[in-house]
């Protein structure tokens, strides 16, 4: 057992740190902390990494991965958090990509993987429906086979950033007679297909991060189905486990702890001393840091298991629950730290936005409200506990 980096790993860290320093677009540095990113902003770093061959470190090398060890990937995430980069969106690289290289045909791999790696194709997720959230397998969007096409009808919702998407991966029902999980197929749909429409949903933070997606007689070639017909649930389960593994967000949370500390140094408490010296605040910050250490160590153990070919199993639900709880606590503490300057909410004034209070205060409340999503998405934390109860504890 050894927690220290080897000489080679330290050399690797220095290499990626230098690469980030030299290549990350200066105008986007730290912008990840605000929530007003354009499509180009989201894709800028992804495209640079695509050219370098670093956009999908977790993929097998034969499909365009880096071949890095789990430790190197951990270092990579740490350094990106340190550099406050906008990471490649998960929908292509972390979600549909692994499904395609695991279950797709050689033609499908060739057709879709390059665009995911390069960042040229923006993917979105069509899973949840108005009536199928936690109970995803009850989904009703229907795909009827007609020759070499499916005709798809239904509605998807909570499709994150779907307003920018070129392609989407959808769970659709191909056999309404089968048991819930058994009649589902996994389809790739070009978002420009006739019959696809996207309606942004306004959220509590004033932004439009998620969408309803309506599918009306959308013609989808059969060769855009991944894996066998009616076996889409296998892909879905595989993808959800992958989604959960990345969801802990340890490196970003560590960065946000540092950011919170810098806010607490700048803020003056009610006793006239810097907030960082306040006992009550210090205690909460320390508890958070300790819990984050526990999560980090647990994630490293999971990574090591994965490296040994045993992962990610139902234990990844633990990472999702604890990771999102910590992310939410961080937003709470940041909200508390900025005091009454958490109240102004000029977002939504359209072109008349202006900063009120210190530069760091404006995002505190929108981010706090926005991150309530974290304990809901990717399988709510209640569902994750059900998974652990059933799959790990055998209850």
């Amino acid at each position, binding site marked *: 057992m050894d927690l220290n980096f080897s000489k080679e790993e330290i050399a690797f860290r220095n290499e990626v740190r230098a690469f980030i320093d030299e290549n990350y677009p200066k105008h986007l540095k730290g912008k990840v902390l605000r929530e007003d990113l354009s499509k180009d902003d989201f894709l800028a770093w992804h495209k640079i990494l695509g050219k370098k061959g670093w956009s999908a470190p977790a993929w097998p090398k034969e499909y365009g991965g880096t071949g890095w060890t789990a430790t190197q990937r951990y270092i990579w995430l740490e350094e990106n958090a340190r550099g406050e980069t906008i990471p490649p969106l998960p929908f292509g690289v972390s979600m549909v990509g692994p499904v395609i290289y695991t279950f797709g045909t050689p033609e499908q791999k060739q057709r879709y993987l390059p665009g995911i790696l390069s960042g040229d194709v923006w993917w979105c997720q069509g899973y949840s429906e108005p009536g199928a959230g936690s109970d995803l397998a009850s989904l009703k969007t229907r795909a009827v086979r007609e020759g070499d096409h499916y005709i798809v009808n239904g509605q998807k919702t909570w499709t994150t950033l779907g307003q920018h998407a070129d392609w989407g991966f959808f769970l659709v029902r191909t056999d309404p007679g089968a048991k819930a999980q058994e009649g589902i197929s996994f389809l790739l749909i070009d978002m420009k297909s006739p019959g696809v429409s996207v309606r942004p*949903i306004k959220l509590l933070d004033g932004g439009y991060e998620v969408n309803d997606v309506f599918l009306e007689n959308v013609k989808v070639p059969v060769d855009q189905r991944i894996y066998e017909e009616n076996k889409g649930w296998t892909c879905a389960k595989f993808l959800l486990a992958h989604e959960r593994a990345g969801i802990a967000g340890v490196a970003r949370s560590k960065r946000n702890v540092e950011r919170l500390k810098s806010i607490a140094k700048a803020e003056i408490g*009610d006793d*006239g001393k810097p907030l960082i010296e306040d006992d*009550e605040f210090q205690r909460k910050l320390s508890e958070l840091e300790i819990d984050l250490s526990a999560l980090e160590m647990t994630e490293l153990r999971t990574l090591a298991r994965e490296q040994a070919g045993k992962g990610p199993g139902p234990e990844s639900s633990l990472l999702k629950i604890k990771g999102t709880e910590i992310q939410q606590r961080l937003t709470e503490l940041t909200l508390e730290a900025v005091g009454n300057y958490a109240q102004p909410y*000029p977002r939504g004034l359209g072109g008349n936005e202006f900063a009120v209070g210190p530069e760091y205060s404006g995002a505190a409340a929108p981010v706090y*409200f926005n991150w309530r999503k974290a304990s*809901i998405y990717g399988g709510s934390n209640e569902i994750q506990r059900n998974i652990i109860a059933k799959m790990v504890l055998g209850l």
Partner: protein
Amino acid sequence: MNFDYTDEQNAIRDSLSKWAQQQYDFDKRREALKSEGAWKSNWATFAELGLLMAPIAEEYGGLGGGPIDVSVVAEEFGKALVVEPYIPTVVIGGGALKYAGSAAQKEEQLNAIASGERVIAFAQAEPKSRWALNDVSTTAKKDGAGYVLNGQKAVVLGAPQADHLLVTARTGGGQRDSKGVSLFLVPKNAKGVTTRDYPTMDDTRASEVYFENVSVGAEALLGAADGALPVIERIVDEANAAYNHEAVGCMRMMTDLTREYAKTRQQFGKPIATFQVLQHRMVDMFMAAEESYSMALRATIKLHESDEERSKAVAAAKVSIGKHSRFVGQAAVQIHGGMGVTDEMRVGHYFKRTTMLDATFGNVDYHLRRFTALNAKAAA
């Protein structure tokens, strides 16, 4: 012991609740928020219903009511998500006049509040003061018979609607000294007053207010120069007591809305309300709302006691309600799932409102410290 409301108080509750259902439902409120002047007709209704005159003495055009009457109004306002600056005007502005105003000031201003002609915002917090009431950098320098004000006030709730500002300013002492703080009632259109208006997280409106060589006459000073801090503490306690009831109204709505949603939302072939983990969460929400009401009521009843008892009861209620409302708000959103974080659903707006209230006149940590300090002082 008697926890009953009077017939008059029940009548206020009923008429307000009816008004809210007919005139201030979620969609109408949303429309009104888009318009600059829509609040004025609501304000006129508040005057008609007697809400503005409720706690004002009869000799100044009021109904001579007390904090319990205000608490009834506040709870209903919480349920309806009312954004008009009722508490700043009636509780804070009215309170400052009641405790510090001269007979002439009361005569002029309280009558105007009662009739709906006067809207007051409390220009107290400053960019670096956080919630410390004694931390005042804005200056009021003696100039002949009057004063000249200079400084910046932060997040002044209701200032965009207000015609007068109740301003805390330093007439003596250092930035954090208890002595040397004075209260002024300044017309917002006085020369040298500028504002930057913006919405807050809960769709209330607020301003940054700047005073640049603002000359006011001696009649603008409320009470004795240098000695206003005890009055400020008192009116802020009274405001917090009222805001607590507003939070209770919000929590009750979140509890009800969540219960109704859980009973109708189907997953896994049954209503999610049948899942025990959610049932227990909703029970905890219910208990949090009940305890919050108890603490709000306790503080309101103790408002007339000694400064120390009053402040302790209000601080205790703020701590309890701050914690409970965070739990209730987060749980309500969680049980609503994705719908809970949408702007379209009412429930998230209650969550925003209670989050806003926690950050108004001191959050949980602030009042925990205050309670501890008051306890230590009593023991010494």
